[in-house]
């Protein structure tokens, strides 16, 4: 049982994202930017955004350093947020936060839920939830307070 929880946490999709992060690097001409930092473990994530009309995520990139969970989560987030309207992004984030805490995430659209469910294993590891949520909170900060 111990092993299966670990295998689920560190499944191939997550390790692949952490080793080969998508949308990695600084974003030229970003309209918004924020830096997230977890002082407990030193994980760092910088999220760059180009927001279009009504805060639609026209483009998104990130840079960071940290554990497999924090980097994989940031990479998956950029994949999923790109092209979303503000309302869609908001719903996605809320659903994600529910999912990693082991709470009901049924209000997520089905295909989103299926993609995010690979991060669901983190709910078995409460000490690591902050690693998974760092990028999302940083995205939120960038939208709200990060206009460049």
């Amino acid at each position: 049982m111990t092993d299966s929880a670990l295998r689920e946490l560190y499944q191939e999709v997550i390790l692949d994202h952490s080793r080969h992060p998508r949308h990695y690097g600084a974003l030229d001409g970003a309209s918004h930017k924020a830096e997230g930092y977890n002082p407990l473990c030193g994980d760092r994530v910088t999220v760059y955004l180009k927001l279009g009309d009504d805060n639609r995520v026209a483009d998104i990139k990130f840079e960071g350093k940290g554990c497999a969970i924090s980097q994989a989560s940031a990479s998956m987030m950029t994949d999923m947020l790109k092209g979303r309207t503000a309302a869609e992004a908001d719903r996605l984030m809320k659903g994600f936060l529910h999912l990693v805490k082991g709470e009901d995430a049924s209000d997520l659209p089905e295909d989103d839920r299926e993609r995010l469910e690979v991060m669901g294993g983190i709910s078995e590891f409460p000490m690591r939830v902050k690693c998974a949520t760092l990028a999302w909170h940083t995205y939120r900060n960038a939208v709200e307070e990060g206009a460049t």
Partner: protein
Amino acid sequence: MTAPLLNQKAKISASFDAEAARADFAILSRQVYGKKLVYLDSGASAQKPRVVLDTMRDFAQSEYANVHRGVHFLSAAATDRYEAARRTVQKFLNAAREDEIVFTKGGTEAINLVSYSYLSPLIQPGDEIVLTVMEHHSNIVPWHFLRERQGAVLKWVDVRDDGSLDIEALDAAITAKTKLVAVTHMSNVLGTITPLKEIVARAHAKGVPVLADGCQGAVHETVDVQALDIDFYAITGHKLYGPTGIGALYAKRAHLKAMRPFNGGGEMIREVMKDRITYADAPARFEAGTPPIIETVGLATALDYLMALDRKAAAAHEHDLLTYAREQVKQFNWLRVIGDAPGKGAILSFEAEGMHAHDLATILDREGVAVRAGHHCAQVLMERFGVTSTSRASFALYNIRADVDALISGLHKARGILT
């Protein structure tokens, strides 16, 4: 000369019975996630022997009241125990006088007390405080306060690549402007043990006092503040197999007499009027408010427990574990040990290629192996070695070689999952 020394060493090792010591620590027999607990995080906080927990409960049930206040029976009994604990700390550090021991809530408060009460009134803009890059944040931040608020200059002494301290570099950093040298006795990350006696001699030659952060050092080394001739030495109870919330500062009597009060409140005064106040003598002057009385009794019990052991043999046992672990990890060409100073204490910090310390610690945890992962409150040191975090196994007197074996097999497993 070599042969007799080796024999003697072998004898010393044989005189410490780790299995017997383990029996004193009830928590070591528990399981986590269905696996045997392997506790390798005593550097963060040590487990408590049964005698400490029993003594605290017995004291609370039979002799507890507030100290230094009432005239009644229990208050007198509790005051006796509290002051006896001070003498136990005095003996543990071999201080000349019991009133050179100030109880604090831990090592952090002890160092903050020196910063606020001793050094702050002496600091003029441009005055220097000499530190090493391997200090714990608790021996950095109190000095940063003096930099921010009073214009003190922090002078950082580097360590060599193996983590050892270059005494000449430290000596060179001490100038006519230096007001204090603040240095760890043992690095909580590297395990490096600093040559305190030599440091004190060099600093005193230039008229500069020395503070040692002994939170790790006092656990593994036998401390003699008189032989060291050190000015300040800070300890914390919970790393010494005692309770949390209690620690102590040793300070030379002459310093204590000159130091301004720290916290204000009951216990630390002589007389309080509407328009004037006089203060109690040290150590009471620095112990405002009701102290953690039960914890103080617990600390004394822990120190008695340690002093009843053959401490040299216990240290040799811990060192054997470190040597064994160091040999074992050589098989991993993806693992870099950080801190290999000669004569270092029983701490093994490392970085593993392709595995972040937190991922590694999570996998080890599921094997029952508790290690620390992170920056260990030593970000200046992390920067020095170009890392953001490390994994750390710290060995205590109750660890055994089987604990190292569990760590090694956990490392194999983590490698399999993460890479």
